């Protein structure tokens, strides 16, 4: 359990209090005809199974193998993602930012928890936590160190604070040693954190070691 968010899970009393209060509110809203339980179940299913980093990984992998797609992605990410996702993320104003040997991009929301749901799903606890929201804009290298990431000396760091309804997807650098790989094989290297900027894609060796475990 994340130590930076101790109040989520540590206190049995709060848990039972929250279970009761949430159940009560859902009951009231349902009885009054404001919500449909079947719709609520579907909303949860959407974020547990339909959207998630697998979509972003497909988008990034395609950008790695298809220069024309990459051009579209960097020009109008919403349009490009539409053509890859199995649903229409109409509305979401997505912006893709590309890592280069010169510049590494990191996405944050200092004011709340804005995150590119259509391509990454719901954000992890750390993304919404006070440590990440407070430090990323002032000490990004320290934050990257928390994730075990160190960049080559001389790399510039660009922080994107998501202060409006625009949402950012980082396109990481394609790992070395992946020449000729299929889009599907490449997608397996693209981690969630690499698309937020707090991680790097897996190398072919790391991926092999992970698969063997």
């Amino acid at each position: 359990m994340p130590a930076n968010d101790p109040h989520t899970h540590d206190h049995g009393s709060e848990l039972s209090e929250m279970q009761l209060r949430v159940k009560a509110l859902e009951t009231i809203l349902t009885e009054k005809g404001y919500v449909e339980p079947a719709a609520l179940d579907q909303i949860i299913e959407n974020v547990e199974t339909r959207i998630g980093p697998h979509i972003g990984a497909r988008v990034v992998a395609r950008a790695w193998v298809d220069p024309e797609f990459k051009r579209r992605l960097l020009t109008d990410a919403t349009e490009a993602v539409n053509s890859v996702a199995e649903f229409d993320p109409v509305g979401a104003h997505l912006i893709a930012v590309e890592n280069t040997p010169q510049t590494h991009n990191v996405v944050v929301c200092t004011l709340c928890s804005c995150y590119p749901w259509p391509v990454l799903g719901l954000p992890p606890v750390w993304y919404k936590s006070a440590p990440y929201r407070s430090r990323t804009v002032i000490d990004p290298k320290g934050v990257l160190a928390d994730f075990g990431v160190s960049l080559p000396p001389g790399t510039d760091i660009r922080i994107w604070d998501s202060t409006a309804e625009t949402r950012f997807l980082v396109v990481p650098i394609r790992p070395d040693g992946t020449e000729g790989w299929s889009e599907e094989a490449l997608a397996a290297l693209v981690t969630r954190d690499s698309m937020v900027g707090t991680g790097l894609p897996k190398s072919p060796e790391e991926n092999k070691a992970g698969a063997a475990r």
Partner: protein
Amino acid sequence: MTNSIHDMGGTHGFGPVESEPNEPVFHEDWEGRVYALQRAMGATGLWTIDGGRASLENLPPLAYLASSYYRRWFLGLERRVVAHGLVGEDELAAGRALRPGMRLNRKMTLDDAKAMSFANFDRPSPGPARFKPGDPVRTKNLHPATHTRLPRYARGKLGTIEAVRGCHVFPDTAAVGAGENPQWLYNVVFTGRELWGEEADPAIKVSIEAFEPYLVPA
């Protein structure tokens, strides 16, 4: 409120970022229910996303910091349904409906949920954009008592327009029921040194998405 605890950028002392391996989407079932209730009630159109954010920002600072993410969402939602007259305090206390519900213009159905749409905030432009990429701008030194999306660390700072995002719903008015009032939105980039002083790492740049009313020519 604007200068409240939610505006965390640059604050010291919260400690390291700790990532949880193989983290589930929700840690407890009630978190998923809160998420779903929030989405479903948001679809009624009775309040805006900015009004929802404002209700979280208005939580007492100690409650904000001491609550988990979805507990904050729950507390905000509870406040909102009461404030809009959808639910009575007596009903919350009773844990069940004591009166029939109000008529809603919109309600999220199962089919709506299956369609999985995302809200859109882009709007037609009311006039020409004041700035273009490359323009130097200064953010205003604003401290409104109501909702804003200009973070404190980026107020009164010199930056450069990097991109024009089109016109978008203006959170500052949408949050207080004063209408969408669409405004041009820009990506404005600052050097680390402009934001954090001469000691800051020269390799760092930070950008925000800034609405035109936050900016003046520099």
